[in-house]
């Protein structure tokens, strides 16, 4: 796949709700494939019921440790998955990485105004901390019934969806990913959706998004922040999944 020849690392800084280990199908290991490393607080908990009931300073301490003490090795891309909001985790990761170079943020939304209003805040956050915005991904846009193949708008874009917002705010729209029941299932079982359903409309969309992200950032640079606001759900994350079969 597109990221296949690159070394990629994924850092999950959603301290209270780490989803990455489950989606990657990882149990206590930190390498999915030879060229993909993952770090998350999920690996440090002794049971799936363990809650991380921490206030800001403690969360910031762990993020610092993740950046300083994890042996990331030589990587081409570091992708950071953040929790919803514009608070401690977001400020800290930007602050701690300010000495290196952050290529920018990918912002995830759903089509409704209720979600877009949070995303505008996220965009303002990026402006405030001078974080470049690579673009916006609209997730869950439309649902195609597997039986009758008709499309329904489950989350209606009443104010024009991400497209209109991007035009108004002058940020690029990286793509739209339709709701596909298979995405959630793949995430739950830790499979790569892109290799399970490579020809589906959602997979095509993910691939074109990855392509746009790669064109947008120079390959020399190595850090990509993945932010989402209110909608930090399973499918939103998946476009960062890559085909686990390395190409020879």
């Amino acid at each position: 796949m597109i990221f296949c020849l690159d070394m990629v690392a994924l850092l999950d800084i959603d301290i209270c709700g780490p989803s990455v280990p489950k989606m990657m199908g990882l149990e206590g290991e930190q390498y999915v494939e030879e060229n993909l490393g993952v770090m998350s607080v999920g690996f440090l908990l002794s049971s799936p019921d363990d809650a991380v009931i921490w206030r800001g300073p403690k969360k910031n301490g762990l993020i610092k440790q993740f950046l300083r003490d994890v042996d990331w090795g030589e990587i081409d891309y570091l992708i950071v998955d953040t929790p919803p909001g514009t608070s401690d985790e977001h400020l800290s990761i930007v602050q701690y990485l300010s000495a290196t170079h952050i290529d920018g943020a990918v912002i995830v939304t759903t089509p409704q105004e209720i979600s877009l209003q949070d995303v505008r805040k996220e965009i303002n956050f990026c402006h405030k901390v001078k974080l470049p915005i690579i673009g916006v991904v609209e997730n869950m846009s439309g649902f195609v019934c597997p039986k009758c193949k008709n499309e329904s708008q489950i989350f209606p874009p009443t104010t024009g969806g991400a497209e209109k917002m991007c035009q108004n705010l002058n940020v690029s729209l990286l793509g739209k990913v339709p709701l596909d029941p298979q995405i959630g299932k793949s995430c739950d079982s830790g499979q790569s959706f892109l290799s399970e359903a490579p020809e589906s409309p959602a997979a095509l969309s993910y691939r074109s998004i990855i392509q746009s992200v790669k064109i947008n950032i120079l390959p020399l640079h190595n850090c990509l922040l993945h932010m989402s606001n209110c909608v930090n759900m399973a499918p939103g994350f998946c476009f960062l999944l890559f085909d686990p079969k390395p190409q020879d």
Partner: protein
Amino acid sequence: MEGMGGERNTNLLGVRHILLVLSGKGGVGKSTICTELALALRHRGHRVGILDVDLCGPSIPRMLRVQDRAVHQCDSGWVPVFVGQDRGIALMSIGFLLERPDDAVVWRGPKKNALIKQFVTDVAWGDLDFLIVDTPPGTSDEHISTVEALRHYKLLGAILVTTPQAVSVGDVRRELTFCKKTGLRVLGIVENMSSFVCPHCSGSGIRDSLLFFLLQECTNIFSKGGGEELAKHAGVPFLGCVPLDPQLSQSLEEGRDFIQEFPKSSAFPALAHITQQILDTSQQSS
């Protein structure tokens, strides 16, 4: 921790039951459940308040179409915004305090905690039957501070919202642990976005609430049943499955009263059932 709760403020003494709505994940529908529960309780004749402590992403003002309103001061503190023709729902949210609606609240924990404390002590709620508290995702500053501040009032318990996927259910397991550790009673789990009835393949003639719902083959966009299974496993009540319903999302977008306008839609019976169980629990405990 204990010293702080000692100073009981009079503003919350007229509130009979306080409910928290929690979830580990973002975007699972906490604010939706809050809003619809408030409307449903209101239609049953109860006095309802909503406190929105999601400081970085307040959604309730828009869902109730009051995003342009402002809070005022009175002798006993902030006057909440009253919603609806009968002004029957009182709402307090950071959304009313921002200069521009798109302003980001870029605050670290201590500042968020200070505002939450102020929300708890300084809002003149008056007499309420229910105060519903909408929280951000997670188990961090906002949650610890809210539970600490409300501990000495009539805190009925928490409703946990999940979607059916394992990833979301996993976060609710952590939320259950949070409730256990903070001594918060779990009123039950709600599974939101449970299934979806495709309006194109379903016969439009029998759109008759529950019957219709049972007759349809629902498409499970996200896998189904995770919430119920978890409730069984954890020994807490399961309050119900709310299906994905375009009429519900549309109502929330436009700030319309779903409970009043769409009694025949697929999400309605589920929401009514959840409301009834909350009422039953509150009656038992008062």
